[in-house]
């Protein structure tokens, strides 16, 4: 039953796009070396190409003659329930869908999106790890993976408004910009929410948050369940339509950005004329157009570096914006980690990994490498634009008793506003 669902999903998902890339793979194994999980843990099964195995088998065995012949000759194994369970661990707990592998693949195979398809099949088979499934269920039923109910949300907003003296317009019809935050910011980094509000207000933005579309994080997207993915985005889009906003701003969340900016138009109806951007882009715009001014050299002194988030930088292309701002904030002490930009290494917490308890050891192991990168340049602080990353950094740095401070870009900008 599980296998059937997974297989059917794979067949449904396998268009020419998927097939051509599966065909292009030469099994050179180079992708393994790009994978932080493989590098950190040395398990050959973490090689990205191996993560595609269920999809490959489904495609080859069902759609190609050669595959059928190989199957008949016993050169190929059929997918079984236990196979799928096995791969569930591999693709959910040892993959952040960071897609770095695509950037090293000599053939340029987009392995990340293909792994996403593998997850889709597993989700259909009901093989999503418990923690992730639980969080998703919460988002589905309660509206937030962290279990933030409508009421809690309102209270939290009020509290933040008070605490940081930030004006946060809620459900303001006719606003220009709809700002959607993550529960992580709301619950773990409320300052970020407040500081972003401060920036928006400073810029004189006509903005609002929505109680209906209050969660930007998309656990359906982590799971790769398309229906849920759509559902969660639908809530936000509906809010946007109701409020009549022209612009949807995704706060500091990588997967959300990927889902809203780069996926939504392909799987669902996006309100017409709605511009979807990331908060980093917005801040950069403000600064460039002079709507906000920031103090030059505000954070000069301690060595600060920037962590590129997979979905925002490598896949979102927002590479130069944060750097331009950091160059202003810390012209002398800003230092790049190696590798960086498109080649940067994932923090290890994305793709839902951080929400899976069983993956904690993997996650910390991977972070060790990140830590080394930080130490290599003697970073005292690290800045990023994804609260998922930030959560991983904060948690892992504490785990390793590191003194490196973690900032969000918005936070730094807000603190340097003049």
């Amino acid at each position, binding site marked *: 039953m599980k296998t*059937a669902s997974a297989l059917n*999903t794979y*067949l*449904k998902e396998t268009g020419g796009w998927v097939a051509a890339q599966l065909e292009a793979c030469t099994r050179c194994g180079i992708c393994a070396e790009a994978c932080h999980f493989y590098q950190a843990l040395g398990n050959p099964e973490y090689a990205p190409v191996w993560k595609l195995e269920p999809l490959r088998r489904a495609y080859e065995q*069902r*759609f190609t003659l050669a595959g059928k012949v190989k199957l008949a000759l016993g050169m190929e194994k059929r997918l079984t329930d236990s196979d799928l369970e096995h791969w569930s661990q591999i693709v959910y707990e040892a993959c952040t869908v960071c897609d770095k592998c695509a950037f090293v693949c000599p053939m340029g195979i987009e392995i990340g999106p293909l792994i996403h398809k593998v997850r889709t099949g597993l989700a259909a088979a009901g093989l999503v790890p418990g923690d992730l499934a639980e969080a998703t269920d919460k988002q*589905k039923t309660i509206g937030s993976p962290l279990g933030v109910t409508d009421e809690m949300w309102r209270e939290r907003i009020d509290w933040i408004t008070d605490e940081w003296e930030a004006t946060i317009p809620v459900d303001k019809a006719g606003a220009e910009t709809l700002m959607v935050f993550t529960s992580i910011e709301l619950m773990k980094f409320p300052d970020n929410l407040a500081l972003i509000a401060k920036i928006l207000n400073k810029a004189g933005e006509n903005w609002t948050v929505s109680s209906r579309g209050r969660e930007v994080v998309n656990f359906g997207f982590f799971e790769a369940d398309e*229906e849920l993915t759509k*559902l969660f985005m639908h809530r936000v889009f509906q809010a946007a339509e109701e409020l009549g906003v022209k612009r949807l701003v995704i706060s500091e969340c990588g997967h959300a950005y990927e889902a809203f900016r780069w996926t939504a138009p392909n799987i669902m*109806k996006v309100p017409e004329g709605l511009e979807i951007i990331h908060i980093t882009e917005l801040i950069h715009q403000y600064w460039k157009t002079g709507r906000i001014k920031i103090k030059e050299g505000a954070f000069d002194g301690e060595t600060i570096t920037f962590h590129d988030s997979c979905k925002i930088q490598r896949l979102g292309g927002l590479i130069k914006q944060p750097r331009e701002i950091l160059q202003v904030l810390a012209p002398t002490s800003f230092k790049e980690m190696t590798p960086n930009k498109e080649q940067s290494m994932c923090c290890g917490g994305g793709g839902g990994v951080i929400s899976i308890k069983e993956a904690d050891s993997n996650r910390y192991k991977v972070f060790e490498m990140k830590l080394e990168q930080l130490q290599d340049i003697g970073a005292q602080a690290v800045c990023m634009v994804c609260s998922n990353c930030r959560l991983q950094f904060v948690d892992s740095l504490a785990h390793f008793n590191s003194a490196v401070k973690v900032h969000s870009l918005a936070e730094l900008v807000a603190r340097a506003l003049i």
Partner: protein
Amino acid sequence: MKEKTIYEHLREKGLSRRDFMKLCGTIAGFLGLEFSPPVKALGKLVQPDPARTVARALQTKTRLPIIWLEFQDCAGCSEAISRSSSPTLSSLVLNDLAIEYHETLMAASGFQAESAKEECLNKYRGQYVLVVEGSPSLAEDGIYCTVGGKSNLEILKEAAAGAAAIIATGNCASFGGIPAARPNPTGACGVADLIKDKPVINIPGCPAIPEVTTGAILHFLILGQLPQTDSLKRPLVFYGHTVHDHCLRRPFYEAGKFAASFDDEGARQGYCLYRLGCKGPTTYNACPSLKWERGLSYPVQSGHPCLGCSEPHFWDGGGFYQGQSAALIPPTAQTSALAAGAGLAAGAALAGINSARKKRAKKALASTAPTTPAESTTSAPPDKKEG
């Protein structure tokens, strides 16, 4: 009257003992005897002093009777042997050989010619060497080549029966040659394809290098046996290496310098002719080492690619001007289109099956999927465009 030995003939011609030994050394060198292992000559194993081996043979042998038959030939090999330089035909005829039957050269005709042959067949039964020029033709029981009203096959069998050895000279007699070229209208083949119970050696070439033919005959004359051969029955001493192996232009091949056309700068400089279709690399023959007309030239030296004329069926071995690696039957545009069409049909058929399978998968998923959240239906995603 007692038949004189070759040595006696030579002495009569005024050759001194000293000159005789020198000649023997030359012949030995020519036959490649220096490089031979100990030979079993005249019944006992001798560690050969090559010149002595030759000398002893010439001192004891009478002139070797030769029957020369021509079948489907052009007489080119006879012409060639008439230009043999060492030994010359006249010295062979006068000193070493008794050519008892040769249609192009002999004085007698018709009945007399046939009777000369018959007499020789009887008189020298078991002693004469049968040289065959031209291909026997098998089709229609041999009516494509008759002599004296007899089919060539019959003539060959009759002459082969009493032969001590058979030498097939030229590509036609060796492998069928041009008559056997596609479509081989007359069922031509090589002598060795027909005569299995006699020692046969092939001296292919078109024509055979005369010195190679005479060398093989002399080898038999001197050592009483045919030279060692390769798998195609060609004497190793002459066919042990390819034309390419000893080619004058080999250094240019190694350096990757090729003439691209006749009379271009490369051709004038003597660059390798591989590109113009030279078959040297797969052609076993002594052209570049012996050359033609007393070492004057050979085809590659004269600017023309080797045709490969000492190889079986060289007429059908790909174009003479087509590089040796070139495809012999390049698929035509039509064939390629047909192949692509077949691939297209197969691919499309499979695609049809796959798309049906995909539809089934979607259907199956829809029936088993958890109920779709009601909310999402209000803004249905655009239809996916999928095949």
